[in-house]
Every structure is written in C-alpha cells, then in structure tokens.
C-alpha cells in the first residue's frame, strides 16, 4: 500500500454556529490523481483552505508527508511541499511572466532573502523558471507582462507559479475556470503533463476534465464527504447523480 502524502483525519471547521466542514477523512497518495467535486457551497474551498493552512480546523488533524501539520502555518507547509493554485488568478500582474515564476523558484531555492547579488545573476533560479515555462510552452512570452496574456495562458502561469515551488502535493482549484473552450485544451495538456510522482488534487466543475483526469473522485456535500470511489463508481452512484451530476451539464 502506498504512503499518504496528504491526509485529513476527522477534520472539521465551524464558524460560530455555521458548520463549514465536519468529520472529513481523506488521503492523497504518491502519484495520486484525485478530484474533489460537489455542488456550490459544499465546502470545497473551505477544505482546500484547511489543507493549506489558511484556516485552522476546529476538529481533527492534517498530516503532510507523515507529519502532523495541523498547527503549522501556510508558509511552512509550502516549504514542506504543499502548493496550490487559485480559482481566480492570483498573479503578479505588473510583472513579466518570467518574474512571476522567478519569485516562487527563488523562494524554493532559498535565493529570495539575498540583497546583494542581482536577481539576474541567479542563473540557477532563471534556468529553473525558464525550464518550467518551456514545459508549459510559455517560453516565448516570458518577457511579456503577465496581464497582457490571454486568459488561458494566464491560467498556465498560475500553474507554473505553483510548480515553481517543486511541490510533492499540488492542489488545483478549478484550473479551467473562466477559460474559453477554444483555449481549454492547453490547460488539459498541462495537467496531463504534470510530473507523475507528485500527488494532485483537482477541484473542478468541468466533468469532462474530472473524468479524463482523475483516478479517484471524492464528492463533498454540505461540508461532509458524501461519496468516494473510482470515476466508474461515482458515475454509477445514483445518489451522487441525483445530488450533483443531475444539475451539472454532464450526466
């Protein structure tokens, strides 16, 4: 049996009387391709925030690579290999594409606190950033301001920033959100090309993408895990179809 990289044990979160998540048990193994789905307001974003350390759970524990990180801050979890992308782009809009990736890579390689050597002389950082951009076919626009790119390619930069952190676990929050269908194949290609050894959790509404990508699916409803299984199980589960798939574009 493979080792869990990210694990939630009985995790829950209440905001006063509001229960946003309760009793979530979840694990993500090495090389996993896992999808998290659920109707609006099911607590998907809360779940991601609990895993990444933006929120502290009011019950349960979170483990990253075998260690209890429940009380550990977001920045430290990133250092230990947990990276995420955002549903709505959070890019360094005024900077070039290369600089957008330079920043996380500099953090990852420990270059960022340096005040004396020019950023341009850290060839190791620039090379690593350029290599990532080449993988995502962004090398030709590396010098462009990121805000000048079409939206689909901005979404790729969003993924590139997370990959720049050399993560063990990558959480993709609706990577194709807002991308016009003419461009969505570049996102699919990028996701298909993610390194096999990192565990990926994708939160997505696009059922096409989910069923193409995931080898396991968790359905979240009302802050609780409603069902979990292989794509086949989930597609065949009548309750899931009634609650979720029935309302979606795809059946």
């Amino acid at each position, binding site marked *: 049996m493979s080792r869990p990289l990210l694990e939630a044990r009985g995790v829950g979160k209440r905001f006063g009387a509001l229960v946003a998540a309760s009793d979530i048990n979840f694990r993500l193994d090495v090389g996993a391709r896992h999808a998290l789905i659920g109707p609006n307001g099911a607590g998907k974003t809360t779940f991601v925030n609990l895993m990444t350390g933006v929120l502290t759970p009011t019950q349960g524990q979170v483990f990253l690579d075998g260690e209890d990180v429940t009380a550990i801050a977001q920045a430290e979890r990133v250092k230990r290999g947990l990276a995420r992308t955002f549903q709505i782009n959070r890019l360094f809009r005024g900077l070039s594409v290369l600089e957008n990736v330079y920043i996380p890579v500099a953090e990852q390689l420990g270059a960022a606190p340096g005040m004396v050597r020019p950023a341009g002389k850290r060839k190791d950082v620039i090379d690593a950033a350029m290599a990532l951009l080449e993988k995502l076919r962004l*090398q030709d626009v590396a010098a462009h301001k990121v805000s000048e790119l079409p939206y689909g390619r901005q979404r790729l930069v969003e993924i590139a920033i997370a990959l720049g952190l050399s993560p063990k676990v990558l959480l993709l929050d609706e990577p194709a959100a807002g991308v016009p269908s003419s461009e969505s194949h570049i996102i699919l290609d990028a996701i298909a090309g993610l390194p096999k050894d990192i565990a990926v959790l994708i939160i997505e509404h696009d059922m096409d993408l989910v069923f193409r990508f995931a080898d396991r699916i968790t359905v979240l409803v009302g802050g609780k895990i409603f069902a979990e299984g292989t794509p086949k199980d989930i597609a065949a589960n009548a309750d899931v179809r009634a609650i979720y798939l029935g309302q979606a574009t795809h059946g």
Partner: protein
Amino acid sequence: MSAADFSAKSVDTKIAASHPATWSLVHRHRLRWWEPLPWILAIGYFFLFPNHLGFGTEMLIMVLFALSLDLVLGYAGIVTLGHAAFFGIGAYAVGMLAQHGIWSEPISGLAIAAVVAAIFGLLSGLVLLRTTGLTLLMLTLSIMLLLEEAANLAQEWTGGYDGLTDVSISPVLGLFEFNPLYPTTQYLYVLCVLFIGFLVVRTIVYSPFGESLTGIRENVLRMHAVGAPVRKRLVICYAISAAIAGVAGALWAQSNAYVNMSTLSLDRAATVLIILVLGGYGRLYGAFVGAVAYMVLAHYLAKLYPTAWQLGLGLMLMTIALFARNGIIGIVENLLARRRGKAPAQGSGS
C-alpha cells in the same frame, strides 16, 4: 513531456538562461548609458551655481529622502504618510548629540542616526506592518505626530518649539570645515553620501529580495501562498528605508546647523510623497527627477507668486494624478515606448 525533468531543479543550464526572453531580467541590473547623467549634472551644478549650493544641498538631501520612501512605497507597496518620522529621528539624533557636546564627528554621526532610525523602524514596523491600506496610513501618520509632540514637550533635550540652534559639527575627516554661509563642503559631502545611499537602494531593488518586495506589492496573498515570510521581508525593508531616511535627516541637521520640528512634520512627509509621485514611484530615478522638479518649481513659484505659489503645485499634482500616474519618468517611458512602437515591458502603478 517526461515527468522527471519537470521539477525546478533538474535543468539543462546553458540553454535556458541564454533564451532571448530572459534578456531583460538578466541585464536589468547592468549600468545603462544614461545612468551617470544625474551625477554629472550634480557635479556640473557645483561649478555652475557656486552661489546656490545651499539650495543644491537641500535638493540632494530630498533626493536621498525620496529614495528611502521609494524603497517602501514604490517597491514594497507600503503606503505611509509618516516617513518624516525617520527623517526627524535622524536629524534630532545628530542635533542633540552635537548641541549637548556629546558627539560632533559628522560621518559617525550619520551612522548613529542610521542605527537609531533603523531600530525605530524595526520596532514600529513590527506593529504597523500587521495592517495595510488606510489603517496603515493613519498609524504611520499618528506615530509621526506623536514624535513631533514628544519633540515639542521634551524641551530640555530637543529645544522644544525653537529647536536646536547650535548644532556645530566637526570638520569632515578633520579637514573640511562646515560653513553654513558658503556650503561647498556640505554639497560635496551630501553628494557622496547620496551616491552611497543610491548604490544601496539600487543593489537592493535589483536583488532577489527586491524582486520579492515587488511580489508583495503586486499580490500579497500570492506571496503568502508561495511560502514567503511576507511580514519579515516588509519589516526588514522598512528598517532599511528608515535608516536611509534617518541619514537624510542627519545630513539636513549637519548642513543647516540646526534642527527644528519641521523635520518631523506632516508638511515634510507630504512633500517627500509629492516628490516621489511627481518623479515616478517604483522607478529608482523618480526620486531624482521629482526632487529637482518640485524644488525648482516651488522656488520659482514662490518668487513669482509669494502668496499663492502652492496653487501652482496643486494644479501640477492634479495633472500628474489625472494624466500621468507614473510621474515624469512614466511620461518619458511612454514616449520612448511609442517611438519603439511597443508598450514598456515592465511597470508598476496603473
């Protein structure tokens, strides 16, 4: 696309960094042909206007002060309206030591001012930089006003409202006398210090640390998400900036041979902010252009319209705010970009 070579570490080194798209980042810290220009002009001023060196010294000091503000406001995006606090701390540190006969050597005086201002920047930054936006603006303002009031009340030390009027400074290096009436020493001394201060700021903004400051300015939430210790970086930057502002204040005290509450006032804090916005913030040379443009303009407007000169400044500021958000340097950048037929690759602000 194989999986193994995706990670940030295993890369074919030579090919990537020589990619043409990396050119602007790889080369941006290199000296450009026009960069010696401000220094040539500053030395030219020394020979051309020997009777206006006092005014020149004041301009150079404001350039240094504006540079320190550019580091926090232009690069790190810390919105402050109280930067004169550090200017005043530097000025009073040097002034009090000299007035009370404790220490009058000028160069070590600057170091003392820098350390005192940096410590104050560090301590206040630890508290202030938990906040952002309007809250931060009001807190920086109120700390400065508290200091101003403290300077007013601690009369025994600070001279209160009258200030310190007998700040006599020893000759620079034991050789060059400070003479407030014919300030050749002051001008060259301030120019040298400005040059060093500029090199410090330039080195920082082009470093990976500087890059991470711009990251904080552009998207602080993302900086948290990439694991950057955001508040620590901001506090360090704030303390460095405070030290430079403290040196600027100390230079002001040394060259004028007095210190008064104007060094700590909202008027000074607002002036340096206007200078930076006028010249162009986040642009390194905005401080130079802004300080010279503001002070020359203020000087001539005050001569022409002694009662209403600030109206002219106000109109000019409105023009900048409405039509040239990136200041005078921004206008020049746009013109150059238009001549080359493309938009500038980098920029802040709008």
